[in-house]
C-alpha cells in the first residue's frame, strides 16, 4: 500500500479524496443544456479505493458511512467552490447518515456557506444500502434541508434499497434511474416497461426522471421516446475535474 498509513485512516487525511463532476443534461429539441453537475468522490490515487464503487462498499463494510459522508461533503464543496459560473450541484449522502447524524444538515449548510454556494444550487442525492429505512430523524433532516432550499434526488432507483417506501417518504424532486435499467433499453421491451412505469410514477409525484449511464445514441433515443429528458452518461460527458472545467471555460467551450 502506498502512503504508509492504513487505508481507512488515509481516507480521512486531508487531500486524499479527489472530486470529479459529471453533468446531467436536459435534452430537448436537439439541444443539450446542463441541468446540474453531480459531484463524485474518488479515493486515494493508486489504491483500490480510486474506484468509486469499491470505495463506498469498503466504507460501508467498515461501518463508517456517517463519518465518511461528512468528509465527502467537505471535500466536494471545497472543489466545487472553484468551478466556473454558478452551476447547480448534486451531492451524495446515505439515508442512514441522515438518520444517525443529527448534525449533518447543519454541517452541510455551513460548509456550503463557507464555499460561497447557495443551498438553492444544491441537490441532495440520497442513496441507501442499509437493509432498512429507519425514518423519523432522516425525514426531519430532509425537511430542514428542503426549507433551506435544497432539492432532493433518490439515487439508484430500481436497485438495492432505493424502493417505493423511500419514494413515498422522501417525495424526491428527481428519480435517478440506475444504469442497469438504462443500458440496452433500446432493444429490451422489459426494461422499457419498467422505465415507462417509473416515468409515469415520477410524473404522478411531480418529479423528474434522470437516466444514468447513457452510453449510446440508441439508448438516448429510446429514453427520449419514453419521455426521459434528463440524461447522464459517457455519451454526453465523462466526469471531469474542476481544473478541466475551468480550462474548458477559458477555452470557450463546455467541459
Amino acid at each position: 500500500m502506498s502512503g504508509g498509513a492504513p487505508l481507512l485512516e488515509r481516507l480521512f487525511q486531508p487531500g486524499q479524496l479527489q472530486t470529479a463532476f459529471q453533468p446531467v443534461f436536459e435534452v430537448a429539441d436537439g439541444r443539450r443544456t446542463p441541468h446540474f453537475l453531480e459531484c463524485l468522490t474518488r479515493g486515494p490515487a493508486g489504491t483500490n479505493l480510486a474506484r468509486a464503487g469499491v470505495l463506498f462498499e469498503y466504507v460501508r463494510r467498515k461501518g463508517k458511512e456517517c463519518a465518511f459522508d461528512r468528509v465527502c461533503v467537505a471535500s466536494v464543496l471545497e472543489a466545487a467552490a472553484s468551478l466556473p459560473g454558478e452551476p447547480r450541484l448534486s451531492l451524495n449522502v446515505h439515508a442512514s447518515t441522515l438518520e444517525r447524524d443529527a448534525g449533518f444538515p447543519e454541517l452541510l449548510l455551513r460548509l456550503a456557506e463557507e464555499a460561497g454556494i447557495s443551498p438553492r444550487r444544491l441537490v441532495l442525492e440520497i442513496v441507501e444500502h442499509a437493509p432498512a429505512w429507519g425514518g423519523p430523524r432522516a425525514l426531519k433532516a430532509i425537511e430542514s434541508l428542503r426549507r433551506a432550499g435544497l432539492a432532493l434526488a433518490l439515487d439508484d432507483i430500481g436497485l438495492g434499497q432505493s424502493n417505493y417506501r423511500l419514494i413515498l417518504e422522501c417525495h424526491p424532486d428527481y428519480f435517478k434511474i440506475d444504469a442497469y435499467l438504462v443500458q440496452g433499453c433500446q432493444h429490451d421491451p422489459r426494461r422499457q416497461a419498467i422505465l415507462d412505469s417509473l416515468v409515469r410514477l415520477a410524473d404522478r409525484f411531480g418529479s423528474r426522471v434522470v437516466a444514468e449511464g447513457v452510453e449510446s445514441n440508441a439508448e438516448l433515443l429510446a429514453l427520449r421516446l419514453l419521455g426521459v429528458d434528463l440524461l447522464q452518461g459517457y455519451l454526453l460527458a465523462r466526469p471531469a475535474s474542476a481544473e478541466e472545467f475551468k480550462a474548458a471555460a477559458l477555452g470557450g467551450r463546455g467541459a
Partner: protein
Amino acid sequence: MAQRLLIVDDEEAIVFAMQRYFRSRGFDVDCARELEEAEALLSHSAYAVVIADLRLTGVHGAEGLEILSFIREHCPWTKAILLTAYGSIDLEREARERGVSLMLRKPQPLPDLAHAVLALVQEPA
C-alpha cells in the same frame, strides 16, 4: 481475455512478489490487504481465483475463512486458495465447509502456486 486474480495478504513483500509474478504470466491481478477491502473488490469485480492468507491484521484472526464464506455467498463461481502456516485438521474441515478449493502451506514457492492456480482455472465450473 486475461484471467482475473485477487491476492489477499497483509504482508507487503508477499503481495508485491505475488503480484509481479502473476502479472508477468498474463494474469490481471488485484491485491487487498484487509478483509473489507477484499469484500469490496469481490462485490464489484468477477475473479477467477482468490488467493487468501488465513490471518490478516484485524479483529477476527481468521479473516481468510471470512473471505471463503463471502465468496460462497456472493460469487460461488470464484475458486479460492487458502494459504496458512497454521494448518490443522479442524481448520481444514472448517475451510472445506466454507467451500475452499485448495489449502496450501505457507511459504509456498510461486511456481507451485501458479501451477495450482492454472489447474483451478482450467477446471470445469
